[in-house]
């Protein structure tokens, strides 16, 4: 309980649980909204307060792709790997971004600036291949344009 994670924001989540029996998934979604990932200490605290065993929390947190147990970067780069993007060359786009950032799919740069992810489909298939950086979508990418977008050599984004 001492790692410096602030547990105060957790109070309304626990209150909702007591009053409305919110599901574990909803609680984890709320926690992730607050902390941007699921810190271990917070989950332990959640387990103690709700009497839900840590094993069950861990089972749910690792089953769903949207939960993160590790801190993520300030900028999250999502390379769309939907079918439409795939047939328009998104694997080459992914390779280019990986090369530029020096990390693989699912990893975060050591300075927590970038996290690289792939997504199954963002539904902007007319813009294929597409990548999303935080909230912004960039369509009709080529490998070199995508690399330029995340390039740290010059300021961009």
């Amino acid at each position: 309980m001492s790692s410096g994670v602030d547990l105060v924001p957790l109070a309304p989540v626990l209150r909702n649980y007591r009053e409305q029996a919110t599901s574990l998934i909803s609680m984890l979604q709320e926690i992730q909204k607050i902390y941007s990932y699921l810190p271990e200490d917070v989950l332990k605290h959640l387990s103690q307060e709700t009497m839900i065993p840590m094993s069950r929390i861990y089972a749910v947190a690792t089953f769903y792709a949207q939960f993160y147990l590790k801190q993520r970067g300030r900028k999250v780069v999502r390379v769309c790997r939907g079918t439409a993007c795939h047939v328009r060359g998104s694997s080459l786009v992914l390779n280019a971004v990986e090369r530029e950032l020096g990390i693989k799919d699912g990893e975060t740069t050591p300075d927590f600036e970038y996290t690289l992810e792939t997504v199954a489909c963002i539904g902007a298939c007319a813009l294929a291949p597409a990548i999303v950086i935080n909230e912004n979508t960039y369509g009709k990418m080529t490998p070199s344009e995508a690399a330029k977008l995340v390039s740290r050599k010059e300021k961009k984004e």
Partner: protein
Amino acid sequence: MSTQMLNSSPGGTQTVIVCQGTGCVSSGSVKIFEELVKGIAQEGLAAKIKAKISGCHGCCEQGPIVIVEPEGIFYCKVKLEDVPEIVASQLKNNHPVERLLYKNPLNGEIIPHYRDIPFYAKQQRLVLRNCGHIDPEKIDDYIAVGGYQGLKQVLAKMSPEQVIEEVRRSGLRGRGGAGFPTGQKWEGCRKADGDIKYVICNADEGDPGAFMDRSVLEGDPHSVIEGMVISAYAIGSTEGYVYVRAEYPLAVKRLRLAIKEAEARGFLGKNILGKGFSFQIHVNEGAGAFVCGESTALMRSIEGKPGKPRQTPPRSVEKGLWGKPTSLNNVKTFACVPVIITRGAGWFAGIGTPKSTGTAVFALTGNIMNSGLVEVPMGATLREIIFAVGGGVLGGKPFKAVQIGGPSGGCLPESALDLPVDFDSLDEAGAMMGSGGMVVMDRDTCMVDTARFFLEFTQAESCGKCVPCRIGTKRMFELLTKITEGRGVAEDVEILSELAEGISTTALCGLGQSAPNPILSTIRYFRDEYDEHIKNHRCRAGVCKSMITYFIEPAKCQACGSCRRQCPTDAIEGAKNLIHIIHQEKCVKCGNCVTACPPRFSAIKVISGEPVPAVLPASERTLVRTKGEK
């Protein structure tokens, strides 16, 4: 429906509609709308011209889209800087801005009205009847086009049994993919024992390359709510859920807003329309698991548990959510219900084919001219959809295959193009209606790589509960990887087929049972590509990296340096007036040089399965320019 819309603008006023589906939003339509509103106010046109947003209009390829009604003038690929001209010319002086109108790519002819554009002209929009026309954030817009009439009719003069009978007579089958008769499902749930019953709307559209459900929720959420309330009345349910992918924030936002508005107007909540019937809807956001699109897994997920499917029977209509009878339908199924009520089962059954009534909605994507959302009567052929509506293959390249039904579906070859699109024909051909993604693939798509792509997805999304899926999809993925990496042996295709058959008959749920379809269909129709990969180390599409080499054709290279500058590993050597060469040992096959080389030169050749020519020595690479070049 669109004609009804045309007449609905009162007293000579005009409405300018800015599409805010995901595609158009991604290309900047939010700012365009703000700018238009500002421009209209500045010019003092606000009394005469109304500006509003809409959900997806369907022709995503041409986005951002701006439409002026009642004329139906269609502006495409609008940029922020075009807005002042639209305001000054079109809105103020009724003079269309010609350069922003749609041009027929075949002959360059300008088509000012969207109804005349082939993409729209060949469609029949029933599920998408309001998408792109009404403002999804305003319930009055929905009511103005006849919304909630079906519900009123049901509550005023129909018994639950009559509603079920009407839906049954319409022949409506589940739009989620399997095509189970909706009326039969509702009846099963109505007759099941239980004090509490649930209605669930499955909006967990996880298939890569599909965005129909999202577009309906974003563009016309009330039609889904109305369908759910009617269904709840028929079944005898008072509580329902919409399970929607969390990756669809806009759909979630508009749905929540629509629920609030519907409650405020008495279409939802306690004592609906004063008729004593109550029904409430909860929105449940998924957390990123493809398997949750499977109905029993989805219900586990609503219960807050890991979304793992269970054995059936008992069927969900008897023992579903929290062990209670539950009826689950897809977004599009619900969206069909209100029009079945208002226009009658006979009208609906008259569309499509006798066994697959109504329409089919597809997200048409991939190597296609007009990516977008299309809706055609069941029974239309693939050729009509891809060529007449979709405008054919992008860049005029030869057609190779069309993938239908996502990871559960299959790839069909050119010989299948005249197949009618309905539940049963697609099934027979080895594809599946699935969730309705339709991805067109051109000559440069490798079919073995495509199968591997889908298996990479399914093995990662397998929940791990049953052995055939957990281990089987992984083994199939490994075999496909082996083949695409040039390590395949002759028996591999036989082993793959055997595994595929075994898994499809023994896996627990639909995900596992259908996971082998991409393999089975590609082996069935594109067996020669598998053999070429294994025997000749040749990938004819030039996709599989281990068997391709990029080579600069000396006769075509103009030493412009474009490829050299884009190469991330400095594998390209060359200089001004010196024909470039690639050092193969440094090349990582990123493909940058291919896109960098100006199309008028097209000097980079992808070689596979044949010897690579030796590079010329530097002394022979001096460029000799012919007249007129510099």
